[in-house]
């Protein structure tokens, strides 16, 4: 059986996927991997592939993605079928990279901006982050006022 996963945004296809309660085998990039489940508790899964190791798996987020940590490396992983589509980014929209507060608006509506020029400043975690234009153009929209709190991923301004 073929099975698809998405790891850090990249599709991963494995072949000959077989899973039972205690063991798992599949072929990935021409190599066959066999894992035995040794024990499982809370977020921690102890696996044996000839050399015991610990995998730590977080709860899935609303997009069906879990953080998995193995041997010090971390990745976001999900089953390809389960993953709900990502928030779409608006064309020309500059989104908030993180929750924060609008600290300063540097450009007026309709003013000319160059690519890379800061339009507004977001304050979060005691730091200032400049939100810069992604192209040359005019400021079409500024969605918030100074002092307003914004969530991560919302459109802060639009340039066209």
């Amino acid at each position, binding site marked *: 059986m073929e099975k698809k*996963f998405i*790891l*850090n945004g990249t599709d*991963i296809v*494995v072949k000959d996927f077989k*899973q039972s*309660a205690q063991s*798992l085998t*599949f072929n*990935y*990039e021409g*190599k066959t*991997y066999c*894992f035995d*489940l040794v024990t*499982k508790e*809370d*977020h*921690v*899964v102890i*696996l044996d*592939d000839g050399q015991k*190791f610990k*995998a*730590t*798996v*977080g*709860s899935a987020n609303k997009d069906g993605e*879990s*953080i*998995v*940590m*193995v*041997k*010090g*490396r*971390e*990745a976001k*992983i*999900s*089953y390809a079928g389960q993953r709900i589509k990502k928030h779409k980014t608006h064309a020309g929209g500059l989104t908030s*990279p*993180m*929750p*924060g507060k609008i600290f300063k608006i540097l450009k007026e509506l309709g003013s000319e901006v160059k690519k890379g020029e800061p339009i507004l400043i977001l304050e*979060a*975690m*005691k*730091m*200032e*982050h400049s939100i810069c234009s992604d192209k040359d153009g005019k400021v079409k929209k500024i969605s918030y006022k100074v002092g307003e709190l914004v969530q991560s991923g919302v459109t802060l301004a639009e340039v066209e």
Partner: protein
Amino acid sequence: MKIKKILVANRGEIALRVLKTAKEMGIKVVTVYAEDDKALPHALFADESYSLGLGALSETYLNKNKLIEIAKKSQVDAIHPGYGFLSENADFARLVESSGFIFIGPTAESIVLMGDKIGSKNALEKIKIPMIPGYHGDDQSVENLAKKSKEIGFPVLIKASAGGGGKGMRIVHKEAELTEAIRGAKSEALKAFSNDKVLIEKYVVNPRHIEVQLMSDTHGNHLHFFERECSIQRRYQKIVEETPAPQMSQELRLKICETAVQISSGINYRGAGTIEFILAPDGHYYFLEMNTRLQVEHPVTEMVTGYDLVKFQILVAQGDKLSVKQSEIMQKGQAIECRIYAEDPDNDFMPSIGKIEKIGVPTLRDVRLDCGFLDGTEVGVNYDPMLAKLIVWGENREVAISKSIQSLDEVLFLGVKTNRDYLKRILGHKKFIAGQTHTHFIPDNKEDLAPKELAPAEIAAMIAGLCFNEQKPQSFQDKPGSVTNPWLELVGFRNV
């Protein structure tokens, strides 16, 4: 007077750090918490803990009057300010003392003197402490600052006079960038410190950041606990610190430490303090600033000297004499601290937030994780994104680096993006291993420090982790969190 009860006016790991030593000394501890911190360990594990309410920092951890009120109500003898927040606020130190409590820190006069970068440089020039060329004057007009910058020669550094933590700091390479940099620095300075005064300095290329830990009592004893190397910085904030400083002759080490003691004795300092120096590649060093408090990175000094710096702070605050002599303080082995931040180093160090599902525990010997969070607690936007400090001791630097890399794997913070893997890349970098550190290490080695691609075997192991984690026992899957009582079922069976 013997201190029997302390109020810790801080949060997170540093509040817990003070709590630990106080418990060892048989001293009771009162902590405070903002409402959004009420599930954090500093709010849970003290002898008494009081809410500061909810709101801006000025209403909570920076609310001097509320803190004094709590100190009175809980009848403490002394107040420990930790680091950050009110630790270098002279008004608070004065208010604490005028309200009848001991301030576990320096005098308000020392805070004022050393807190003003311009004033401190003027004072220290008088006692012949080496200073970096610069302009520290009162004429803050853009024209004058530009003129002085040209006299000093580019590159120059502009920074907030009252600053710290990299706020209000700008490096200017050429004249054209100057006006915007001055405006930016002044704006940040005004916001962070309510004071937009800036100073200009010659910018040393490839400098190292070396600092010296000091401790002074009120009986004229001024000791140093050797140096720390803190050159590995991002956004002008330290992320890896160690002691002893690698690639430093014993002669230079002692000279820098003695210069630091000249300062603490010269200003008749009290308590714990740190002198930060810039060390140029040619071996010249210059006074940078004094931090009149306990430093975030103090644990590395504790690991190699074997002394508890918080204990000394408390003892000298109650008027005791320092019981150790300078000649008894030695450096043994190597200690490295890694600051674990909730941030994405591969995306411009963007802070991240979220719920910590699980915190990993280090298992190697002589490893300390100073952490202010618990499983299930939240990292919010309102505070500094530092999650924990991993401090590792090894008999030599090679061992300390290797143990640090292994421990970074263990201390996961499941649920939030952290810089752990990035810290491992720094510690494993050949230049770091060779001790070739300077404050531009991170930008200069940006390509080497980029994330490595996951190996197929790692990807396979992650898939296995996901697949087994998805399998949940049937009963729990049906009714999450419910536990069936077999006796009730038996009763039901009989009634059928």
